[in-house]
């Protein structure tokens, strides 16, 4: 079956590797000015993010210059979905559309064996390509990670173990969608919808609760704090611990202006506090392991369902 898989999917592998190569070229090309600016502006001097004089300005300038590039890299979070759309979904749907399953599944290799070996080999290739992409992004984002941390979703989602996990998950969803829907376009659409939905649900509801969030109380005027952590919420409370609503905050700022007082100082003087709830940067690898584990398990479960279904419900 390895031979069969190689013959049928080498074109896809070639496209995948080409994409990776193009990405690598772009990464190297853009990394040069970033690295130059990073060392030229003596940013390492500001590490770990500190209150050293002038650092605010330096970091802000660096972020202003290269922040948009980092935003583009954040968009690479869609790449894992491609494995599901272009490898997973057509895997069975195309067999049904072209009728070739009637030949493929009546040979000595049982269709369960057929699907298992194909899924395993494609998953392996997907993990390798997605893993390399992840390594490339981690290398490229080094300066950004140092300044901004990598706990927030913008970095977390494109680095580390979760990238191959997302890709394998998308692949499994695609295979199952192709088996159930039997049409490539329908299967691709379903794969995209399910992939995005699960990713968003995990990001919004599960990941913040992987471990109990930490809280810190700071003065309302405090800046730069917790810049490398993943800040989940940042609430302004009054002296009595009651949450300050936005109109009330606006009113306070208005009062400060009318009284010609610096609003920050004024708000501090009211005894108001900010309660910052966050996931600390140090939990990066723990969270990566948890989320990657979750998506790998989902992929396994979905593949198991597909293998069971392909045997139970014949064409």
């Amino acid at each position, binding site marked *: 079956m390895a031979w069969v898989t190689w013959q049928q999917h080498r074109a896809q592998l070639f496209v995948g590797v080409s994409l990776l190569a193009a990405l690598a070229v772009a990464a190297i090309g853009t990394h040069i000015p970033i690295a130059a600016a990073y060392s030229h502006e003596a940013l390492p001097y500001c590490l770990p993010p500190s209150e050293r004089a002038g650092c605010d300005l330096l970091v802000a300038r660096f972020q202003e210059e290269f922040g948009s590039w980092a935003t583009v890299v954040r968009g690479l979070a869609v790449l894992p979905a491609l494995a599901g759309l272009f490898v997973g979904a057509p895997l069975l749907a195309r067999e049904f559309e072209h009728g070739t399953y*009637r*030949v493929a599944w009546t040979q000595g290799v049982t269709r369960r064996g057929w699907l298992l070996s194909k899924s395993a080999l494609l998953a392996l290739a997907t993990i390798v390509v997605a893993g390399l992409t992840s390594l490339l992004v981690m290398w490229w984002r080094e300066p950004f990670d140092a300044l901004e941390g990598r706990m927030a979703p913008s970095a977390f989602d494109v680095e580390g173990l979760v990238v191959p996990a997302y890709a394998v998950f998308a692949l499994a969803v695609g295979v199952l969608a192709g088996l159930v829907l039997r049409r490539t376009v329908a299967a691709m659409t379903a794969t995209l919808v399910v992939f995005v939905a699960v990713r968003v649900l995990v990001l919004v509801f599960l990941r913040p609760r992987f471990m109990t969030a930490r809280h810190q109380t700071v003065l309302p005027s405090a800046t730069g704090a917790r810049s490398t952590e993943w800040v989940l919420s940042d609430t302004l409370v009054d002296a009595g611990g009651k949450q300050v609503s936005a109109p009330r905050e606006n009113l306070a700022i208005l009062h400060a202006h009318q009284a010609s007082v610096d609003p920050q100082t004024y708000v501090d003087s009211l005894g108001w506090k900010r309660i910052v709830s966050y996931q600390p940067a140090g939990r990066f690898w723990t969270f990566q392991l948890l989320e990657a584990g979750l998506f790998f398990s989902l992929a396994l479960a979905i593949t198991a369902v597909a293998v069971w279904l392909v045997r139970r419900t014949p064409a």
Partner: protein
Amino acid sequence: MTPALSAWNLGKRFHRVWGLRHCTLTIPEGAIVGLVGPNAAGKSALLALAAGLLAPTEGSLAVLGRDPLAEPAVLAEVGFLPQGAPLYRSFTVSQATEFARRTNPRWDAEIVAGMLERLSPHTKVGTLSTGDRTQLALALVLGKWPRLLLLDEPFAGLDPFACREFLQLLMEGVALISPTVVIASHVMADIERVCDGVVLLAEGRVRLEGQVESLLESHRVLLGPRRPIGAIRGVREIVRERHSGRQLTLLVEVDGPVLDPSWVVERVSLEELLLAYISPDRLRTPKPSEGIPLQWHG
């Protein structure tokens, strides 16, 4: 000896329509059987059930004594040539051959190479003519050295020349391997040429089953002047009656010689016989395979 294919009350429903129903038949090992019937008769459904591609809605079937769904390993011994020979179009001839070799435990490279002499190994399957593609598919199922060969409409889309060539290759392969062969087709002339048994399906049911020779022997065409029909000595059942002007033509199943001199007795061709069994007024009778409608006996 286990039969090559046996079905008991086999039925397959597609959504709300029965593609095959109350199908009970036994095909002994070594037989070459034509599975005939009009379109949508259930021929393809029966073969797909035998190849494990469909699950029965009711009843059961055994292929070489085993259930193809529960024991898919039996498919290694079954050569199934689906209608239209749907091989991977992006493969070359040699890739397609390699595919079949690697997905089957038993493989005879020699027989395949012999059959593919005419085709260039580097041609893409997608660019082959229907005839060549069907031949390739046939070579690949014979390469498995199957004990049971299932061919679904192999002549569809073939010109008469390609058809003849296909039959030639098929008969050579069958002579070598001597598998049980089931050919589903609506080209009855070809069936007559190669098959020794026939199963007639229509509207999802078995209408007639038997050896070609004995079926031809037990049926006759009677020609005579038009008249009310009573019992005719030697006739077991009137399969079909037809009149044109003052002439009456009966196709009958006989159980002895028809000696009444007012009838001209002729032999019947297989095609005519099969067509008679699936004529519209015949299909309306409730259980044609069992019952002898009484009113026809006068």
